[in-house]
């Protein structure tokens, strides 16, 4: 029983929260609203998947939100310059991936702790985004095909939700059912032992951070398509929220370990909370307070893993 609570306690709490909103928050149960919740969870879930990959190898990526903002700005700039939207999307994904790769190289080749390396790249990304934009957002009524990436629907289901499920499913498959996932987890949990066992631990860390950047690039492209604008720091708020989702995820399914299923449910719980509180008519500051409580509560459970990630060299 104790083990069951440890494994599924948070998920069940999330379910309880869902039921409370279902019963007491007006229109929460409507299909349109439930799709809205999933749509709103999608950005967070994609960022959280990326952060999970980095944390799985015991590395902390504090740059993904800034890298996403830079990727978004690059997409906006290219679209604004009448470049094909396909090229703009490719550029956004490339900026995210290269940003993550740079983090990986700093950590594995130059041996800068990831906490410091990613803070540095975050600052570089923010500065570059401001350099490109001059602080002014790229705004436009861009190609409908591009906007459809986030606003389009397939059989009534927003395309954004389908993309989110695809990314979450692939990430879950890679981490749980492939040797690569096992190697990444072994690297994060016992790097020395994993290295002695023949696992290319440096490569795993490089991959973890690169995937974090790639996820940030993907989320950035979708953000731009959803808002038809691109501004420096537009993804800034996702830093704390995505970390909160991953920490929350570490309290369930595989307690104490970063895991994709947990991160996804964590993102879902945060999206339910944000949506439900509005439908409940709660004051706006309650959301921030609740988020803080969730972060503190989940860090309490997963502190040792975070500490290891923050200070490992």
């Amino acid at each position, binding site marked *: 029983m104790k083990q069951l609570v440890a494994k599924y306690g948070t998920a069940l709490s999330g379910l309880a929260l869902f039921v409370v909103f279902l019963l007491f928050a*007006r*229109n*929460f149960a*409507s299909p*349109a*609203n439930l799709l*809205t919740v999933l*749509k*709103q969870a999608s*950005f967070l879930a994609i960022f959280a998947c990326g952060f999970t990959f980095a944390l799985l190898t015991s590395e902390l990526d504090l740059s993904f939100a800034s890298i996403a903002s830079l990727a978004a700005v690059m997409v906006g700039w290219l679209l604004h310059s009448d470049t094909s939207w396909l090229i703009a999307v490719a550029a956004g994904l490339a900026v995210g991936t290269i940003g993550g790769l740079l983090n990986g190289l700093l950590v594995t080749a130059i041996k800068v702790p990831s906490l410091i390396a990613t803070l540095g790249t975050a600052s570089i990304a923010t500065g570059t985004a*401001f350099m490109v934009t*001059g*602080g*002014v*957002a790229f*705004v*436009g*009524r861009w190609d409908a095909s591009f*906007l459809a990436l986030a*606003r389009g629907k397939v059989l009534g289901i927003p395309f954004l939700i389908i993309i989110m499920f695809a990314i979450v499913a692939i990430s879950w498959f890679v981490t749980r059912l492939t040797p690569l996932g096992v190697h990444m987890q072994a690297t994060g949990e016992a790097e020395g032992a994993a290295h002695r066992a023949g696992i290319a631990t440096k490569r795993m860390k490089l991959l973890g951070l690169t995937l974090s950047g790639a996820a940030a690039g993907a989320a950035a492209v979708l*953000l731009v398509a*959803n*808002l*038809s*604008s691109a*501004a*420096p*720091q*537009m*993804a*800034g*708020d*996702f830093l704390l929220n995505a970390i909160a989702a991953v920490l929350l995820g570490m309290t369930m399914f595989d307690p104490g370990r970063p895991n994709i299923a947990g991160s996804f449910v964590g993102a879902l719980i945060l999206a339910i909370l*944000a*949506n439900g509180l*509005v*439908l409940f*008519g709660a*004051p*706006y*500051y309650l959301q*921030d307070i609740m988020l803080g409580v969730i972060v503190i509560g989940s860090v309490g459970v997963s502190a040792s893993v975070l500490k290891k990630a923050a200070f490992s060299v």
Partner: protein
Amino acid sequence: MKKTLIGLAAAAALLAHSAAANAFEIGVVAFQMSSETHARVANAVEAAAKEKGWDVTVLNSNGTLPTHAEQIENLVQRGVDGIILAMSKPVEFDAQMAAVKEAGIPLITVMSGASPHALMDVQVNEYAVGASAALYLLGQIGYQGPILTQRFESNVGTRVRGKMLDVVLSENTGVEVVGTHSMARTKSWREDVRSGMSALILQNAGNFKGIWASFDGQAFIIDDLLKEQGMNKGDVVLVSIDGGAETYRRIKDPDSMLMATVAIPFEKMGAAAVDAMQKIAIDGADKASITSGPYLFMDAELVDAANVDKYLD
């Protein structure tokens, strides 16, 4: 007897609940409550709506584009009877505003710009406001000499103010801009203004007669910087735009360099948005009976030492 009392209390509670459920309900979203002007509009809307007995849900987007979009979507799902947005961005949130219109929810914006999906935007004429502040500054320095400017291009209103300054300067070539800092970081804008303007003030020490700031929050920081440099009232003419208790206190203060502002009636604008909502959504009035175009313009008055007492009362 006890049972009767309980029954009566329950009936009263039920009646109160049903009355509350029948009350007109509006959702208010302020783009960034940490900015005083956004909060003033949102608070004014909330106060005016509550005075009418309406239910109000106030939300703060924390200056983040994705959060603003989500909050508008959540209010649509809640099924509010009307939505008022403070300092929103009609182009960026075109899809969300279109969804509001599609849901049949009347939408009024304040200081946001025109949207085809909104009934109106409550505004001041920023062109007149910008020209008024610029002409006052030039008048105070005798239409001659160097000045510094602190701009903010990311907001439509402050950008227009800056453009009107440029127009005024183009006709008055005796005044030269010797240094300009453009505020780019919206979240850490105070630090941005402080570092940028302190560098400009030091660089141009003794070589400027006036400073133009695009909004009062910037002017407060510049005023404090000038005081730190040992300057006294009359050494430099500092002019800005917005108005508010702190601005009027500084205009009256013999140690402050802030000489004038153009007072934007934020509280009146919030109340006007609520009145317009009442007339259209409840009384069934035609929008054209309130304003013929996309804007409902309000008057803004220039405030300096001559008339500041009226505002301090």
